[in-house]
């Protein structure tokens, strides 16, 4: 039974319920206490120990129902017909006796021996079905049936009933294997897809995959958030820190000369995100904004600007609407128009130059393709001097940064950092830096 619980837990992990070894031990302790006799009680006990969010609880329910499938193996006919002779092979005797529990136990045992839980591909079902049948003693049974066929009328009857039972069993084993496949294999290719999506260029991603991308972004953001908030310190100003005051004044004979305060050190980064949303870069802007705003808890002060021919602030939309809606609105309002970086920087100066200070990070996302217009790099220079950091993200590979109408050569001296950014992995790296910066 312990083995069963362990494989149930691995099935849970496969269904995206995170179960730690400590929780596994808890589950064992709970089941030892409660026993396996009552399905509902068992389910409730595991429900308390294993899944830890409402979302996980739901997946747990599904997984439990699928795993501990109560559907009994139906085997009535073998007993009904009751042939006078009895089968001699082990499997045959088991089939004939109609002992469901023993049969399913034998099936699970054989399944474990053949390693059915390592099944990876849908096409392996036949293979595993046969292996399990063989392990259960199919060979002996077949030989017996063949031998009985040549015998008396009673033997013939037995042979018929046994071969019918064998076919039923095969169906059941196939069902069992299928269930194992659903539980243990990466059946919808989720992990593979995720792996690929993290690396692929964002502009190449199909629209129908946006949903998955979004989920990945949210999960990445979540991870970063927990990483960062662990480091965040909470301080309040104006509170005397008595223990450390006493300690540091020990040397003055207990007279309080030097006061120690609960110091305040909040260094939340101010982020100005300036996104080119013209056709080619729009999908990158979409995911960068999504990422940035998912990090709200650790990067709370984000101001977002979008431009193609002119620039405008879109922060308000992100405050009022949900992410999806805000991004759609942004793209609708500012995309289309030919890109003019000079104009964009001028608008940016008018809008918020006063608020950029040494703690601000300015992120510019764009390919710097200025349609041969005036790059007006002096404007970026002022920004560079005021801001703590200017980061330029360019979705194009480094080799084409200086080709054609790209103005990266003009802008590069005024960026603290310029990097290629065209996949979720790149974005994640950027955000990790950003979050660290604020600490």
């Amino acid at each position, binding site marked *: 039974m312990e083995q069963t619980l362990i494989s149930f837990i691995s099935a849970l992990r496969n269904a995206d319920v995170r179960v730690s070894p*400590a929780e596994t031990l808890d589950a064992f302790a709970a089941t030892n*206490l409660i026993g396996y006799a009552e399905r509902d009680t068992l389910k409730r006990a595991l*429900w308390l120990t294993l899944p*830890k969010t*409402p979302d996980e609880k739901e997946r747990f329910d599904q997984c439990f129902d699928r795993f501990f499938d109560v559907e009994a193996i139906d085997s009535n006919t073998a007993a009904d017909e009751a042939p006078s002779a009895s089968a001699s092979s082990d499997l045959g005797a088991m089939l004939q006796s109609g002992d469901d529990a023993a049969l399913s136990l034998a099936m699970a045992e054989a399944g474990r021996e053949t390693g059915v839980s390592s099944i990876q591909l849908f096409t392996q079902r036949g293979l595993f079905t046969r292996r399990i049948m063989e392990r259960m003693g199919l060979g002996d049974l077949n030989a017996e049936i063949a031998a009985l066929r040549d015998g008396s009328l009673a033997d013939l009857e037995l042979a018929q009933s046994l071969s019918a039972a064998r076919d039923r069993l095969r169906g059941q084993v196939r069902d069992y294997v299928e269930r194992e496949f659903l539980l243990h294999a990466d059946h919808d290719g989720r992990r593979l897809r995720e792996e690929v999506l993290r690396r692929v260029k964002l502009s190449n991603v199909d629209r129908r995959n946006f949903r998955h991308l979004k989920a990945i972004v949210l999960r990445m953001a979540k991870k970063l958030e927990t990483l960062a908030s662990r480091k965040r310190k*909470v301080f309040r100003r104006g509170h005397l820190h008595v*223990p450390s005051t*006493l300690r540091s004044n020990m040397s003055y004979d207990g007279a309080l000369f030097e006061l120690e305060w609960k110091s305040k050190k909040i260094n939340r980064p101010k982020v100005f995100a300036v996104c080119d949303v013209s056709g080619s870069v729009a999908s990158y802007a979409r995911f960068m904004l999504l990422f940035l705003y998912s990090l709200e808890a650790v990067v709370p002060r984000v101001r977002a600007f979008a431009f193609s021919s002119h620039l405008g602030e879109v922060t308000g939309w992100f405050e009022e609407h949900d992410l999806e809606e805000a991004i759609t609105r942004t793209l609708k309002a500012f995309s289309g128009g030919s890109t003019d970086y000079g104009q964009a920087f001028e608008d940016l100066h008018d809008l918020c130059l006063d608020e950029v200070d040494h703690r601000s990070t300015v992120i510019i996302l764009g390919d710097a393709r200025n349609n041969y217009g005036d790059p007006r790099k002096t404007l970026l220079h002022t920004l560079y001097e005021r801001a703590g950091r200017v980061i330029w993200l360019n979705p194009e590979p480094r080799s084409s940064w200086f080709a054609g109408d790209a103005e990266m050569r003009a802008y590069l001296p005024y960026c603290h950092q310029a990097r290629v950014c065209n996949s979720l992995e790149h974005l994640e790296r950027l955000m990790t830096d950003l979050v660290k910066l604020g600490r």
Partner: protein
Amino acid sequence: MNSPAHTELVHSIENVVDALRMEGYVCDEHVGTAVYLAHHLNKPVLVEGPPGVGKTELAKTAAAMFKLPLIRLQCYEGLDEAKAIYEWKYGKQLLYTQVLKETLEDVLQGAKGLADSVRRLHEFGDIFFSEEFLEPRPLLKALREEAGCVLLIDEVDKSDQEFESLLLELLSDFQISIPEIGTVKARSVLPMVFLTSNNTREISDALKRRCLHLYIPFPDASLENRIVEARVPEVLPSLRSQLVTFIQALRDMDLKKVPAISETIDWARTLLILHADRLDADLVRDTLSVVLKFQEDIETVGAEVPSLVRRSLPDDA
């Protein structure tokens, strides 16, 4: 908690559910199982769920059921160890140093040289940081409780992340380390710990891992019916079922804040005072503010009241 009087109570899950009901807390088997496992495995329980479903009440009831004192720690932003675990009695410590200064001469009398003086000082024994000067706060108090207790850490999601880390030692090993003194372990009887969270922020995995996780959703109609029956027994059964059906219908509507069980109970009490024996549209409109806490919601529901009332009537009426 393992005294004979308690083993009777937690002999089986059904017993727990019954015992909780005796104390006026009606719940389903999930909650019963949680208390049962918490008792037998000595694990803390993290209770989550929408506001007003009786998370805090569960801890209070468990305390009453086990006849143990309830020690409560209300969490808020900025809560730190000085308020949750222990604090030094600074005033007394200062006085102590003064007293010490006066006795210093006696101690050092006849000492030859600095080394000797220092040695004597060490021998003298320092109680500056000792239990006498320790002011226990709820968590430490809970550990030192001889006969065990129920410790309620309420709304743990309101506290800061660091505070969660402070809790980890307590939750996994039932001990607290005080740098100046050492480790304080729980007495032979471990406290039973309940943590509640409204999910305003995700609780860290480390904390969740150490707890049993109980999610209490809004109750279904029959459970809510029984809850109202237990809490406000004076309400007529017909009115009760009408009330519950009405509230259940409200929960399906798109409201800013859906009514919780506590609101249902408040409403039942209100109707009792008004001597109502059945719901009608006017009565509902007059008392809606008991159930709904936002003007917007009251307006939204106001228009629907007659049809909601009609639907809440039993079919045979």
